[in-house]
């Protein structure tokens, strides 16, 4: 039902109607993953993973390199199959089939270098949708400021332009589910902004977007849900707020006269991150931040302070950084 509405909405291109409808409908899950496991030789790339992606959401996949993000995305795409467990896309198990309802941007760009931009986009679009996509190609070329390059060969494009072309090839067939593996890697800030806006627009039109990224800021700002995978296992899944709530307000940001040198050996502080003019202190569980602040004030002059929830970047490092590795090793 939701998909039908979403399709109708996307075709109408009427944003106000879209917003109203999307708010009004009860979201179903576009992707349902149940206990999937994938092993390559001795390596368990994905281990007993379950995940639901609601329709119309932007779902961010984060995790260190080699943690299983791409493998999971490829399994959703049906390019590889899980050894065990189930994946349901649009409420159907789709093993062995390629769906025209899904658009996929792989991590490493794959384009025929000798083809011209417009020709390549039409080819990918027609291959995916089985219909002519000439209008859509021109629309996206114009939108991403690539019209002047439409008749140039792929091999003449810069990396950023190539990436934009690959992005268009993913969305030109108007898929309902868009899977983007590292869509912002290698892009300059202007192009990051362009792609971000395009993704947000697609979501507004009803598409569901899953993307993996190493940019925690992008994940924080764009995603409705964040999923983190580490060593093949799910370690985080939920909205940013719910994830941050798990960790509580355990971060004290201070700006002092003495800087980092005056903050050493504070009782109840697990870790200090020094940003030069600003320091972030992680408060150990069951410690009072007021006491710590008093101790700092007794040592130096405090210009400003803030009790905050950890950022996604910080949470990422706590799970997958060297500190976590030391804990695991111990």
């Amino acid at each position: 039902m939701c998909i039908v509405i979403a399709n109708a909405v996307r075709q109408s291109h009427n944003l106000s109607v879209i917003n109203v409808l999307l708010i009004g409908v009860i979201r179903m899950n576009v992707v349902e993953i149940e206990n999937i496991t994938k092993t390559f030789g001795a390596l368990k790339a994905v281990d007993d993973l379950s995940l639901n992606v609601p329709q119309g959401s932007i779902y961010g996949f984060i995790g260190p390199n080699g943690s299983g993000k791409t493998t999971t995305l490829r399994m959703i795409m049906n390019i590889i199959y899980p050894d065990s467990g189930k994946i349901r896309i649009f409420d159907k198990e789709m093993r062995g089939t390629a769906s025209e309802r899904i658009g996929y941007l792989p991590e490493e760009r794959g384009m025929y270098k000798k083809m011209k931009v417009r020709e390549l986009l039409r080819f990918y679009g027609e291959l995916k949708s089985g219909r002519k996509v000439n209008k859509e190609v021109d629309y996206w070329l114009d939108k991403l400021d690539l019209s002047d390059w439409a008749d140039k060969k792929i091999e003449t494009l810069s990396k950023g332009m190539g990436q934009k072309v690959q992005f268009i090839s993913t969305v030109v067939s108007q898929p309902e589910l868009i899977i983007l593996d590292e869509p912002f890697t290698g892009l300059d800030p202007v192009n990051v902004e362009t792609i971000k806006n395009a993704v947000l627009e697609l979501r507004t039109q009803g598409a569901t977007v899953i993307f993996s990224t190493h940019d925690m800021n992008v994940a924080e700002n764009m995603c409705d849900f964040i999923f983190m995978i580490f060593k093949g296992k799910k370690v985080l899944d939920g909205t940013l707020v719910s994830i941050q709530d798990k960790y509580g307000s355990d971060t004290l940001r201070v700006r002092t006269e003495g800087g980092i040198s005056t903050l050493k050996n504070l009782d109840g502080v697990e870790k200090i991150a020094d940003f030069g003019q600003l320091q972030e202190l992680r408060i150990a569980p069951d410690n009072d931040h007021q006491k710590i602040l008093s101790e700092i004030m007794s040592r130096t002059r405090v210009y400003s302070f803030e009790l905050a929830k950890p950022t996604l970047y910080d949470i990422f490092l706590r799970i997958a950084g060297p500190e976590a590795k030391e804990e695991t090793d111990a």
Partner: protein
Amino acid sequence: MRRVFRMVKREYLASVKTKAFIIMLVLMPVLMGGSGIAMYLLRGQVDTTDKQVTVLDRSGIVADMLLKAVEERNKSAVYDKKTRKKIQPAYIIDISKPDEKDPQAQRLRLSDRIRLGELHAFLEIGPNVRHPEGEQSTFSIKYHAKNAAVDNIRNWLNNTINPYLRKVRIKDAGVDESKADEIMAWLQVEAMGLVSVDEETGEIKEAKRTSEAEAFLVPVILFFLMFMLVMMGAMPLLQTTMEEKTQRIAEVLLGCLKPHEFMAGKVIGGLAVSLTVAFIYIIGGIFFLGKIGLKDFIPFYIIPWFFIFLVLEIVMLGSLLAALGSACNDPKDAQNLTFPAMIPVFFPMFIFMPILQEPTSSFATWLSLFPPFTPMLMLIRKAAPVGIPAWQPWVGLVGVVLFTAFVVWVGGRIFRIGILMQGGAPKLSNMIKWAIRG
């Protein structure tokens, strides 16, 4: 199906819409007939410098004849009659007395003169050439030159001395000298086809003289055309699949197509390229031969078989090569697999001559019924003037259809896994595992 068709279209246009394809289309017949054309064009390119040959005649009967013969030859063969341009070297025969005391020293002196460029060759004629009896060295004729084995003068000497000596021997036997030519007349055994009944008139038709063109050229041209078309349609699949894999295009395509659709698109695209070229050459060939009045040489009966076997060969090899390409991770891997993968076309190339000479031998029959070789070998047997039993092409066809289906099935299973497998050289054991497990 629409997606496969779109993939086929891309593969086809990517090959056909290139300058290289057009150039190849024009150049290929030129290259195929290149040696003949080159020989024709270069026929006048001979060294016309006069050639001096010293003759040591121990028989005492050949030297004078040679002097007369060379004079005749130089009068008629050295200059073009119309243009008076020198087209052949004049031969200069120089008769020397054999040194019986130290023949080796004389040979060395003459050899040194050849090395210095003063002399082209020297000829030693044994004493007993008139009646070759006794020790062989006494009736041998030896021609010494820098490149004696392929020297035209040696051929001329051969064709001049031998008929003369035969005539001398006939005369010595007491036969009238005027009968010598008749005695020595050489009659050629003519190659004739089989007598048949004219379907329209019911009359028995004269057997046709079979020419070398019919017996040899037609099967060989079709055989080489098929080889070329296979190289053009199937061979690139190994390389292009490997490139699509390493350039990550395959991953994008697999987001749009099922693996077997992807492979089918590539193979059918390659097939379409080959069929385009085949149609152009065959229709062009028929038109050309018709124009120059050689329509009778066109083997219409073999053309459907040619296309059937061509399609099967390309589908079979194309699937195999695409599967192997999917297992490769760099050009070196692909290069290493090229030769073994092309055995079904290379092996028939090595053995086509004996098969063409004896198309009904059991060696030819059994090999042509072995499915990987059937398309090429059955075609050449069928095209040969010697008829093969009618059931054999059909049995071969059934075998090759089944084998092709098997290769496509196995290739598809290897392709599905190989195309996403990164790192490591392709191993036969892995490919067998992929084919079995799917």
